[in-house]
């Protein structure tokens, strides 16, 4: 509410044009120049700001098939192993870890923070087979996050059965964003066994990613 700052006109008072004009001049000046310096501080908090005014979160605690990757699943792996990616599944290069993309609906333009974490099993044993004259290099499961087809973050990943977490930050224009989570396994060595001694299913498991979760935060200010 506005209040008189010059002089308030009451019934029966002697008036003149300046009684009003001076008041309006003062008030109009106040209105047309209202900016951040004239507003009170600390008036906006997480309760009274409009939804998605400053930030927006998209998340899933168990993404994929009950949190498991969906790039490939060999059902003929060894009994004491996950049904997962083996060299029989033909996976190579960067592949989508899940059958569907994530859509960040209503992204308003600004900074996007992305986070993908979970556990990864990697079969590390055959890192240096015969006639491999290069220094032994662990077999990795790499991870990357694509936003509208552009890498937000790409990491070499893990080489053991361990937890991973990859995070990245980028700036994107407004509009729904399509996010793909991709993995990359180390290709087979020519001397490496793909099956073990076993009755029945004997394919050696190579990579599995599970406990998958993601969280994206759009920051608009």
């Amino acid at each position: 509410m506005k209040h008189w700052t010059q002089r308030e006109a009451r019934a029966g008072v002697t008036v003149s044009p300046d009684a009003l004009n001076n008041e309006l001049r003062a008030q109009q000046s106040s209105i047309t120049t209202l900016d951040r310096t004239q507003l009170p501080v600390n008036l906006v908090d997480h309760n009274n700001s409009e939804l998605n005014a400053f930030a927006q979160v998209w998340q899933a605690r168990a993404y994929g098939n009950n949190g498991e990757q969906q790039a490939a699943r060999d059902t003929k792996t060894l009994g004491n192993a996950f049904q997962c990616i083996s060299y029989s599944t033909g996976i190579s290069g960067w592949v989508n870890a899940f059958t569907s993309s994530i859509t960040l609906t209503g992204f308003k333009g600004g900074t996007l923070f992305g986070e993908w974490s979970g556990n990864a099993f990697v079969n590390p044993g055959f890192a240096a087979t015969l006639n491999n004259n290069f220094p032994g290099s662990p077999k990795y499961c790499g991870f990357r996050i694509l936003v509208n087809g552009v890498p937000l973050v790409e990491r070499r990943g893990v080489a053991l059965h361990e937890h991973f977490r990859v995070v990245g930050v980028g700036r994107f224009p407004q509009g729904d964003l399509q996010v793909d989570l991709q993995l990359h396994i180390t290709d087979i060595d020519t001397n490496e066994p793909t099956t073990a001694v076993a009755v029945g299913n004997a394919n050696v498991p190579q990579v599995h990613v599970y406990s998958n979760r993601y969280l994206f935060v759009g920051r608009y200010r």
Partner: protein
Amino acid sequence: MSRINRGRITDGQDITASDLNDRFDDYSQAGALNAFNVRDAAIDLPQVKADWFARDSFEATLGEFSLDHTSVNTVTASSSTPPAAGHIVQDFGGTASVLNFGLSGVTIGTGDVLRVYWDLSVNPTYNGTPWTAVGALGQYVFNNTTAGTTTVATSGNVWVLYPQWDVTSSALTNFVDVPGQSDFTTNYTGSLYGNTLAQCEATTVIPAWVQFFADASDGKVNASKLYDSRIGWRGVSGAWHYSGLATTVYGMRWIIRGLLHPDQNANVNYLAYDTVAGGQGSPNPQLEYTSGKASAIIMRLG
């Protein structure tokens, strides 16, 4: 900006008090100040409280700090069925490390998300070759280059670290596994106990050991070139977030169990207790740990 549609008053005009008051009302009406007459970008960081991004945050130390590892906590692998109780992450005096949300707890509304992160300095140890024991889950058998077979490690054996929360009171005496996480004690077939991977939403796995097989040739292992390696001291991390039914959380703590190994049953993947490998060596496989941090952030989804 909003406009006031009333002709201006000029010198010599016959006016009354009501004329002035009507005009003043034009300016003093409630709601006249709106988005149109607030300059672009008028709301900026000075107008926004510091809690606009994260409503609240908490942090706690897990375990106890020991830079040179002169003091450590030790967890020994379970070799019994059903598996032994999990180990509560604690300081060197045996006091559980709790991420405390205060006497009133913190309420996670339906429009909120609780983000929890943790890390811990750990050192898996073992003696001998636990994976070669008869019945151990953590072994593969390959043909070798001398026309026989060789038992090697799968390098899939892990320790697990996962959180529990108390959503009943600040007394913190009713910790339960967080949603999406179970305690690896389900007897799913025979003598095997564990979780489906769907029950591992908050699990951090920690490798127990690793073995490399050099000079494999034509799909056969060279039995004289097996190299097992200790994992050594390393930092491990984990994450979990909760959003959904409104709940008040009073505290969280962390549990360590081991050893576990990948398994499958009826086309369902499991992390199962490998109690055979867990019973090998003197002492049995152990996980040493010192300190780490746990932190929680409460944010609004929108």
